[in-house]
């Protein structure tokens, strides 16, 4: 369905600017909103005990990066209203499609039964409250990623729903995702032809840096790029793409300007050390360019646009970048103004739309 049909009376958008937005956060407004999708046991637990649902620590509620000023939805948190999403993103941005990334912090639940029950509830809530109500949306399966077998079971349960195109995994995990303990989960993701979407944040309990716990959220935010880099190292080195050759991985809210230097270092180490990981038969950068895509927010742009063009060129692939608004989160740079405006039209349109359509098979 096109925007013109959906919202008559609006100025027709430039067809050249058609976009697929690969990161829109849909937020569960409250634990009670999940009650229709939870068993009586969990409804009672929430109403009668001190357990009130997940303990989300990835985004400080009122930090300037967490929400755009106008995105607060009545009584609900920013990102919790479909109506507001239509008004603020789907219609004005002329989106063909938007991919929802629901960051419900299932990985904060140590109780495995709760993790399984709440993941299922969130997915049923996404189907009923978002996918069935808005044809321009696709969504990401929420799973108990800390329990790979249970995650695989949930992917099995809802993975055939045509609205789900991705499984969302927090970038901070208790073991790197290349570790074999995660194979059942990635096997299910690959079998259901979904994308593994690795996203900023997570609650594994271990520190977010290789050198312990930092003091400030600002540090965690900056350091998260390093966690993405480490996961890329792990996934390629430990042979996830060799084990599951059709697996596709998206890095969501990772930034991308760090990636060229990381590929150079990784390729060099592979040349020296590849006999330790003989299944890795090509340079890591070749696996990365084939299997991995990266959303453009946060942009982390250099002051000089020429240098930003250099970085994009250094990816050595026009297919890797995916447009994302990251609604309702706030970033310093605007993807259109600060990135796409500086790129050739052909490449900009790939980033706006074509790369996502091909990668997510939309």
């Amino acid at each position, binding site marked *: 369905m096109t925007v013109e049909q959906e919202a008559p009376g609006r100025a027709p958008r430039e067809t050249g600017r058609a976009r697929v937005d690969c990161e829109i956060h849909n937020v569960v407004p409250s634990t009670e909103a999940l009650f229709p999708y939870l068993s009586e046991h969990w409804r009672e637990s929430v109403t009668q005990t001190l357990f009130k649902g997940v303990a989300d620590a990835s985004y400080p509620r009122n930090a300037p990066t967490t929400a755009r000023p106008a995105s607060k939805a009545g009584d609900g948190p920013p990102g919790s209203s479909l109506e507001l999403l239509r008004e603020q993103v789907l219609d004005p941005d002329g989106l063909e499609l938007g991919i929802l990334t629901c960051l419900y912090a299932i990985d904060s639940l140590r109780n495995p039964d709760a993790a399984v029950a709440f993941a299922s509830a969130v997915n049923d809530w996404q189907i009923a409250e978002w996918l069935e109500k808005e044809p321009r949306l696709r969504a990401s399966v929420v799973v108990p990623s800390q329990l790979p077998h249970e995650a695989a079971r949930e992917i099995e349960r809802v993975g055939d729903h045509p609205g789900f195109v991705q499984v969302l995994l927090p970038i901070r995990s208790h073991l790197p995702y*290349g570790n074999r303990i995660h194979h059942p989960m990635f096997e299910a993701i690959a079998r259901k032809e979904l994308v593994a979407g690795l996203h900023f944040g997570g609650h594994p309990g271990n520190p977010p840096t290789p*050198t312990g716990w930092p003091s400030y959220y600002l540090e965690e935010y900056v350091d998260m790029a390093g966690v993405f880099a480490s996961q890329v190292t792990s996934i390629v080195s430990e042979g996830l793409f060799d084990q599951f050759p059709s697996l596709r991985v998206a890095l969501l809210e990772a*930034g991308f300007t760090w990636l060229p230097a990381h590929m150079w270092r990784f390729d060099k180490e592979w040349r020296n050390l590849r006999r330790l990981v003989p299944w890795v038969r090509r340079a890591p950068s070749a696996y990365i360019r084939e299997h991995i895509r990266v959303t453009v927010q946060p942009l982390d742009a250099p002051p000089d646009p020429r240098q930003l063009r250099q970085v994009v060129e250094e990816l050595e692939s026009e297919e890797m970048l995916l447009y994302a608004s990251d609604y309702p989160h706030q970033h310093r740079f605007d993807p259109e103004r600060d990135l796409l405006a500086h790129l050739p039209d052909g490449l900009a349109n790939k980033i706006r739309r074509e790369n996502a359509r091909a990668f997510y098979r939309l």
Partner: protein
Amino acid sequence: MVASAPRGQETIRRPARPAMIDCDHHNELDSDADLYPYLPERWLEHVHTYGMRSPAGGYYPRFMPHREDARPPSGRKSGSDARFTVRHFIEPEKVAYAILIPLSGVGSQQNLALGAALATAVNEWQVAEWLDVDPRFRASIAISFEDPPAAVAEIERRASDKRFVQVQFSGRPHEPMGRRKYWPIYEACARHGLHVMSHAFGSYGQPITGAGWPSYYVEEHVGPSQAMQANVVSMVLEGVFEQFPIKVISVENGFGWLPSLCWRMDAAWHLLKSEVPHLKHEPSEYVRGHVYASTQPMEEPHRPQYFFQMLEQYGDLVDHILFASDYPHWDYDDPDQAFPVSLPPELQQKIYFENAARLYRLG
């Protein structure tokens, strides 16, 4: 770049390069027994009875031992004989100064008092068996950085010997390096004009990723740049450089990551600066004033043009790039073949010599 060219293939020698200051030169212990003459009886007995215990669980056997061609005739470990090192490397490679970085278990001891005793022993050993042997050696002060009062005491013991130019941290201390716990160490460094150096590897029990322990040594060997970035982020954003006029030197972490880290810190700071009101400038300003990075193992894009782009992105920060060989380790960079491009002479002069000469005040 791996040290040796394939057999039968002629080594490509680039035009004569300038004399150099090697900012990552390892003085090796043949074994811990080298330190025994410098350890008090009480700790010698302790080591014999209980050993040196560091947080367990981070066992990633090195790929291979040190360069076999650097082994002294005595058969001791490569890099463990100062006189042989001078003959084998310092003389032929035109090394004006070599900054010694001793890798020992000092910083990772669970028993902090043993860590302090080991630090003193390592430093006495460096004076007697290295610094006194050749005037071209400069050294890093081993400190038990998880025990700042003991570390400060050790700094005080060494500070008058100007051949010690910096203090040594591992790659992954127990807390990010900007945390206040470590500030007394920085205060002492500032008082004595010493720099702070963090050398890749070594941890106090944390995995090399922000997402747990990886499986293979190749991951352990790619990871130090992420660890050092976290240390730089911490020192900048905690405001260490607002408090102390010290320089921090990243060693064996590569250096291609520094431009994008500056961009990312600046972008995030513009939105979140209310959390860190102690910072008076953009984060990249503090990097410009205080952060240095050594070359090995340098990022090597397969297109030379990208390497030049990276240097261009460094801008005036190219004055902060220091040549390092990592002699005598397996992944050592041959000073004549380390760079994937031919550097312009002026830049070569800076990276091999001038930047380090200015930083370490070496003539």
